């Protein structure tokens, strides 16, 4: 009812906004129809975004809360042998560590007596912040540097190109690891360093896109009529490299999320926040004894990276000018 009413009034009242919405919806519908994998990716990504935003509500428990219970085996003055047999014997209150998944703790508890479900749900925040944040830095940084480099060919370009070569000559993981070692292990620093290490790749992609646009007739025409460099870049070049930007952005996210997990493996992860990478790393040595320590976090990483990659691939199929219309 409402929708049809809106459609009727739209052409009369506010034509642009609503018709844009309609176009957008139609594009989305077409995307879902033609790119089912991409739609699955989109769904996964949206799901994790909801998890991250509503973590405090959905998470059931505070991820930092330590659950404790009384110890039925408590003995006041245990001998060393008794202690070796039952390490908790000397304490009347014990941390509820390594509890199996149950109604109270859906995914069980970890070594520290914390709820794993809450940790997994809250961990989506770090993954999204790291993935999106690093990708934004990489793309924005790459855009600025790439455009400068492409537009002002010559010494500036040459120098920037060599710097980029340098960043690409050092293996990505080792470069980020090295950079994180210099600064405090905070989330912000991690995002920053991942983005900076990543923008070598984006700069290169954006630069070549800008180069091809720069040679086109409309830019030459704009130059002839005396448009300023800034104006040409913003009005003519930028819109034409938009597709490359979106593709680079979406493909990168999954890689940064994985890189965060790998950094946790190397002991360089961010401190003080629930991190899936750290959870997998901490639990993998006793995978057979307490599988729930790693299974849920490992699956979460896999699914979110899968989601971003499927979405990114579909976007590329749709937006890549070379494949357009396929």
């Amino acid at each position, binding site marked *: 009812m409402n929708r049809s009413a809106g459609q009727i009034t739209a052409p009369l009242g506010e034509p642009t906004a609503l018709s844009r919405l309609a176009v957008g919806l139609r594009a989305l519908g077409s995307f879902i129809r*033609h*790119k*089912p*994998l991409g739609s699955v990716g989109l769904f996964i990504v949206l799901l994790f975004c909801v998890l991250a935003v509503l973590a405090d509500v959905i998470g059931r428990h505070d991820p930092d809360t330590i659950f404790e219970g009384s110890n039925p085996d408590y003995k006041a003055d245990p001998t060393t042998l008794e202690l070796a047999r039952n390490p908790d014997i000397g304490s009347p209150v014990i941390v509820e560590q390594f509890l199996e998944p149950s109604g109270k703790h859906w995914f069980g508890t970890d070594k520290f007596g914390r709820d794993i479900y809450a940790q997994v749900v809250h961990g989506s925040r770090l993954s999204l912040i790291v993935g999106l944040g690093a990708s934004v830095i990489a793309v924005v940084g790459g855009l600025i540097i790439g455009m400068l480099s492409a537009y002002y060919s010559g010494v500036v370009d*040459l120098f920037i*190109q*060599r*710097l980029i*070569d*340098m960043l*690409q*000559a*050092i*293996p*990505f*993981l*080792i470069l980020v*690891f*090295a*950079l994180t*070692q*210099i600064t405090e292990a905070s989330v912000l620093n991690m995002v920053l360093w991942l983005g900076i290490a990543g923008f070598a790749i984006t700069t290169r992609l954006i630069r070549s896109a800008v180069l091809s646009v720069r040679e086109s007739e409309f830019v030459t025409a704009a130059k002839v009529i005396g448009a300023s460099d800034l104006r040409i870049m913003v009005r003519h070049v930028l819109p034409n490299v938009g597709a490359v930007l979106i593709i680079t952005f979406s493909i990168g996210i*999954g890689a940064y999320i*994985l890189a965060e*997990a*790998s950094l946790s*493996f*190397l002991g360089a992860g961010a401190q003080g926040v629930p991190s899936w*990478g750290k959870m*997998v*790393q901490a639990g*993998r*040595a006793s*995978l*057979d004894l307490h599988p729930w320590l*790693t299974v849920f976090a*490992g699956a979460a*990483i*896999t*699914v*979110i*990276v*899968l989601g971003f*990659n*499927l979405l990114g*691939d579909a976007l*590329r199929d749709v937006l*890549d000018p*070379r*494949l357009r219309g*396929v």
Partner: protein
Amino acid sequence: MQQYILRRLIGAVFVIFLTGTFMFFMLRLLPGDPAAASLGLDAGSISPEALEARNAELGLDQPAYQQYANWLWDTVRLDLGSPFSKRGVTVWYEIGRSLPYSIELSILIMIVGFSVAIPIGLLSAIYQDRWVDYVLRTLAILALAAPVFWTAAIATLAVLQWELFTIDVIAQPHFWEDPGAAFTWYLVPMFAGGFAGTAATMRLLRSQMLEVLRQDYVRTARAKGLRESLVITRHALRNALVPVLTVMGVTLATIIGSQVILENMFNIPGIGNKIISAFFGRDYPVVQALVLLIAVFVVVTNFVVDILYGIIDPRIRFS
């Protein structure tokens, strides 16, 4: 042509110089004292005089610019010095020990990666947007998405549980010493690493194939009634593979230093493994030399690929 090569050569040397300089100063920014790092937990017991003596012995008492000048001059003469953590041997010795392992592992990973990626990329381009395409691509991306230290740990447990084969983490055999033992040692890491790297190659091949399949010569081939399988293998695949194979060289160069996690998990004393442990031990000469080595690898490979590409493909202008 010669001028182009010369220009690229100067550029390559400059990049190597930049990398070395960057690593040199970055290492000096790291918190912690290399002279005390080898003491680990016992560092709390060292006396200030002993620390000073050790710093002097390692040349760390000099001002940074002087250390840099020394390093530069030594490196130019290919003298990489001696590891802080193992005096009496040269860094070259360490490289000679660890590089073969990294190369072996990287080649195996490449073989697995490409032999999985090429069929998948091919099939998913031919059957674009059909279920074969969806299933294969999802699998490839799934392999990329699962953290390698998780999948490798699961695979290890399976090997241990069912006593499948020996993973010789102590003898560390090379292929030319004991091919069988080396193969089983590398088996889990090579598949874990190979699968994880599949997606990138698969994507590249798929998009190349899609592009080639729309080219006029493919259309012509089809029009003249050639069988579809011949069209694909003779005309499309051959052309689509060219850029994929050129990527191969560069991929190998970057893989060599990137297998830190797998090398750690399977006790492979390769380059990545050495770099990270040298980082924790603040062993500057080792980190500098190994990163520089990888940089030289990458830069040289890029250089060679570009030149070869120019020779093969006359359309590329040497401007």
